[in-house]
């Protein structure tokens, strides 16, 4: 049957020495329980599991000790009975050599297990129930990547699976764990395969792919699968046929599109070990707590395959196999092509550990120094993904990330075939890994800076909008003032006397009291300004700290500090100047308006007339006066009309309303113009009295306005200077962002401070002058 099935050839590939016989001399052995098991919470791809036990808890074998966190995660179970002695960071088997959260169990040797629920016939159960069982057992891909199995078995609705591939290729030299599993547990492999096929709604084709250097495994599988739909396909040995994408190409002739998953072309690929684990999870309710691992290498006295509990420390395993550290050149988890060196033998064995390789120095000598690339092209011939490894190497060296992506760097599966054949001993894969890492980092940073740029632009837009609105208001006010002036002039010509009528002095006095606060407030504001400027000066003068500990302070930093100090000093100077000016003005204005207070009405009239032409606020007030007069007349007319039953009464009433509205508007405008002179909206019935009140107010407001007016120019200057500084600060921020400067944050806060200051100043300016 085997020979009839067509297989495709993959491009490239290499034939490293297989070294498979060493570990196949002895039968599969079971290792004794280690005194301590260390179970990393992240033995799979995805989120680390969350511990559900506490230190000191007694656990039994098969008990769940950590729970999956989300879909892309897997449970962790206690491999045997014992006591939780630690939940903390421990070295994990990872190329980084970093530590990660682990649960440590001090085993008690009793191997006391929880009761498991077996399933006699899984066909009677719902698909989702079965998937849940597999998920509950914490099954993750045992081939190497550790992808949560239940996720892979639950493809998206638009992915119609027509082919299930069981990966028994094991193309890495030295490793025979899957080979041993297929030889000894062929029945379970077949049963597991059938289970997976059932879960995938029985795809049309179910294949177990095995390289032709494992004749015994092929034979055992064929015997076990004799009466099933399962094809056992053996194909020529070539590294890396066992890569998921490569195996799919070999068995189906299809290629997984770049950046997609096999399910997108209707294929699901699972490791044979995963099939067995899934089968045991469903049939016996057994969680994934042990696996078959190859222990091999000339630095060991015993080389074989072992069935070992997850979490068993590697040094425990090595001791059991007569490891001689002096002889060993390195310690590798995985095979010689893709495995990684272990930072420390204390790391535990995890779900994805298929091999522990302890080669002697003669067996795997240290890498030779790299020579220049002679562009021989052997790497391109060896590449199973049809990349141009040497071009990638050049671009990786040049850090030309665009070119790297154009040369499909991310389609590199890091199989190591190119490095293997490179006659100049260039560690090509290492360059690709580093380049991929940098590109990912770059991408992240770019996203971040994009985000902050968008934020900045949005802010700019908002500020511009506010500015535009203010400008529009200002313009409207100006026009209104001009109109009022004209009208006043007309009225003057007509000899209309806006004569003051006896006024409710108490009203005016309370208002005056309210208004008196303003100069004090202004002074307080200026004082605050000075204080904050002094504060920032102090900050700027603080001794410099180096960017990174251990580095000395750079000249650049020093220069920046000088600039900062200078700016802060200027700011302090400005603030002081302004404050003193304000105080001087305050003194003056306190003298001048004093007599006005003694005879408010007369002074008000005199001043209103004298300064009418110069002061826009006054114009507005005059406008208000005339409006109120008009309102009075309009109301009289309307009243008369209503009394007379005139049909124009409604129109007149509307006119009155309009006028009232206008007055209100003008009053608010006036209020905005000088918040000190808050003009209470006058009840329409009392408008005559208000006209007088307003005149008094006018006079008092004038005093305050006079006080602030002289500071206006200063304020305006200040606004201009702050604007310029803000502009500069923005430029600097943009530059810093472009260069990914460390001080971006500082620049940003600087810009924000400046713009808020500008806002305050502008408000001030608006409030005090127009």
């Amino acid at each position, binding site marked *: 049957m085997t020979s009839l099935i067509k297989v495709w050839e993959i*491009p490239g590939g*290499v034939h*490293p*020495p297989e070294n498979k016989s060493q570990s196949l001399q002895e039968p599969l052995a079971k290792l004794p329980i280690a005194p301590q098991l260390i179970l990393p919470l992240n033995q799979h791809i995805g989120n680390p599991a969350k511990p559900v036990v506490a230190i000191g808890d007694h656990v039994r074998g098969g008990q769940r000790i950590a729970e999956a966190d989300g879909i892309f995660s897997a449970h962790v179970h206690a491999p045997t009975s014992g006591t939780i002695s630690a939940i903390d960071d421990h070295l994990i088997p990872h190329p980084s*050599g970093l530590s990660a959260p682990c649960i440590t169990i001090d085993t008690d040797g009793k191997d006391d297990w929880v009761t498991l629920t077996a399933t006699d016939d899984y066909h009677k159960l719902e698909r989702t129930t079965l998937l849940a069982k597999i998920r509950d057992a914490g099954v993750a891909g045992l081939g190497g990547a550790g992808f949560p199995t239940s996720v892979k078995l639950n493809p998206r609705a638009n992915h119609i699976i027509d082919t299930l591939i069981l990966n028994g290729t094991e193309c890495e030299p030295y490793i025979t764990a899957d080979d041993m599993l297929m030889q000894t547990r062929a029945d379970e492999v077949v049963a597991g395969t059938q289970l997976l096929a059932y879960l995938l709604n029985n795809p049309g084709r179910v294949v177990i792919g095995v390289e032709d250097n494992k004749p015994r495994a092929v034979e055992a599988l064929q015997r076990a699968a004799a009466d099933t739909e399962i094809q056992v396909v053996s194909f020529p040995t070539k590294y890396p046929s066992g890569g998921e*994408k490569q195996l799919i190409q070999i068995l189906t002739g299809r*290629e*997984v*599109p*770049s*950046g*997609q998953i096999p399910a997108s072309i209707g294929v699901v690929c699972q490791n044979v070990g995963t099939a067995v684990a899934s089968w045991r999870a469903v049939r016996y309710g057994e969680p994934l707590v042990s696996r078959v691992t190859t222990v091999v290498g000339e630095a060991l006295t015993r080389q074989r395959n072992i069935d070992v509990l997850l979490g068993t420390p590697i040094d425990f395993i090595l001791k059991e196999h007569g490891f001689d*550290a002096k002889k060993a*050149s*390195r310690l590798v988890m*995985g095979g010689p*092509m*893709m*495995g*990684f*060196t272990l*930072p420390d033998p204390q790391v535990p064995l995890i779900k994805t550990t298929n091999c522990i*390789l302890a080669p002697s120095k003669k067996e*795997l000598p*240290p890498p*030779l*120094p790299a*020579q*220049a690339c*002679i*562009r*021989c*092209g*052997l790497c*391109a011939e060896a590449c*199973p*993904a*049809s*990349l*141009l490894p*040497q*071009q990638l190497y050049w671009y990786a060296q040049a850090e030309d990330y*665009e*070119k790297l*992506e*154009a*040369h*499909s760097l991310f*389609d590199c599966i890091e199989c*190591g075939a190119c*490095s*293997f*054949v*490179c*006659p*100049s*001993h260039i*560690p090509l*894969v*290492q360059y690709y890994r580093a380049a991929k890492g940098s590109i990912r980092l770059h991408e992240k940073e770019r996203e971040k800076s994009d985000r902050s740029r968008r934020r900045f632009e949005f802010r700019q837009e908002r500020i511009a909008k506010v500015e535009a609105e203010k400008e529009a208001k200002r313009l409207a006010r100006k026009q209104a003032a001009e109109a009022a002036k004209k009208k006043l002039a007309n009225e003057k010509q007509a000899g209309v006397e806006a004569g003051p009528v006896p006024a409710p002095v108490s009203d005016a006095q309370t208002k005056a009291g309210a208004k008196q606060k303003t100069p004090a407030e202004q002074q307080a504001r200026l004082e605050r300004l000075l204080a904050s400027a002094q504060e920032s000066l102090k900050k700027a003068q603080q001794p410099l700290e180096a960017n990174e500990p251990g580095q000395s302070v750079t000249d650049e930093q020093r220069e920046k500090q000088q600039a900062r100090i200078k700016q802060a000093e200027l700011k302090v100077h400005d603030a002081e100047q302004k404050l003193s000016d304000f105080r001087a003005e305050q003194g003056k204005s306190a003298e001048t308006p004093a007599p006005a207070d003694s005879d408010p009405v007369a002074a008000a009239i005199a001043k209103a007339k004298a300064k009418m032409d110069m002061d826009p606020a006054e114009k507005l007030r005059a406008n208000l006066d005339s409006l109120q007069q008009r309102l009075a007349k309009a109301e009289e007319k309307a009243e008369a009309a209503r009394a007379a039953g005139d049909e124009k009464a409604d129109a007149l009433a509307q006119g009155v309303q309009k006028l009232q509205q206008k007055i209100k508007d003008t009053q608010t405008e006036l209020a905005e113009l000088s918040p000190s002179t808050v003009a209470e909206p006058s009840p329409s019935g009392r408008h005559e009295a208000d006209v007088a009140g307003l005149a008094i107010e006018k006079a008092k407001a004038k005093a305050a306005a006079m006080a602030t007016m002289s500071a206006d120019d200063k304020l305006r200057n200040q606004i201009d200077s702050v604007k310029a500084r803000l502009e500069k600060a923005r430029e600097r921020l943009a530059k810093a962002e472009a260069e990914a400067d460390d001080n971006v944050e500082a620049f940003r806060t600087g810009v924000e401070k400046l713009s808020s200051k500008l806002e305050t100043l502008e408000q001030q300016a608006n409030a005090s002058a127009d």
Partner: protein
Amino acid sequence: MLKVTSPHTHSALSTGQLMRLVIYATLPGLAALTLFFGWGSLLNVALASVTALACEALAVRLRGRPVSFYLGDYSALVTAVLLGLALPPYAPWWIAVVGSVSAILLAKQLYGGMGFNPFNPAMVAYVILLISFPVEMTQWTAPRNALVDDQSAVGIIEGLRMIWAGAPIDAYTAATPLDTLKQNPGLLLEDLYSQDPTLVSGIWAGAGWEWVNLAFLLGGLVLLYKRVYTWHAPVSMLIALALMAAVFYDGGSSNSGGSPLFHLLSGATMLGAFFIITDPVSSAVSVRGRIIYGAAIGVLIYVIRTWSNYPDGVAFAVLLMNFAAPFIDHYTLPRTYGHKKPRKATEKEGH
């Protein structure tokens, strides 16, 4: 214990071994040259090798690199041997010396040493010599089996005198078949084959030359067998050259530039195909790229041989295509796994 990244195992092949293989593969050609044209080529190779190694050592030392490590890649030796093979036998000693100095210092180390030279160093040197010293570079001795009445083969003493003391070489020279064809337009090839002593004594492409070419072909086949390089560039070059010759061959007159077989076995055809254009550093890299690169060189060789003033065109053709190699690479990226069509180096993609 080592903390290194995968892969942890390596194939036995090293750059030094590859280069040594190339040198061994030139031996049949060198033997044929010595057999038919005397000791001259051997002396050229020896002179060039010594000079090249000295230059390489000097340059590496000046750049502050370990000398023995860099000489251990044998690349300088390969360049020297190839240059020595290309030079006319019994050329004055300074020809080989100037050539080697230009090859190593100018064409290779000035660009950054091995792996960084855009042009084939041996061919750069050859062209420099050809343009600077055209007389010395175009005097080939007559092959041993095509000596005319008043000629004798050069003895080793006589040879050394010619090389070191500049004794005149005229009496021993003869036009190469490519020269003969170029300088006798308007004749029938049949006449040429029956008049020119070199062609008369030969079978397909002149005495000596055809055997030298076949010897280089043999060496090339060994390298192909040893997988030192792929067949793409040499085969496409030979096919292109033969095709050009076939298209423009009118079957009889010397105007049309000789039969395909004549071109395949003349001049530096086989040396070029299996030892020069296969220089990986200066050639295109992808499979498609190498096919284009080889074919273009084949076409250019025929064009230069037939329609230019130079009798042979391998060096010029190779240098011209060295210029074009990065351009070819740019447009001939292979189709990567999982991609529908080959990409261009300019293409951008997010991921």
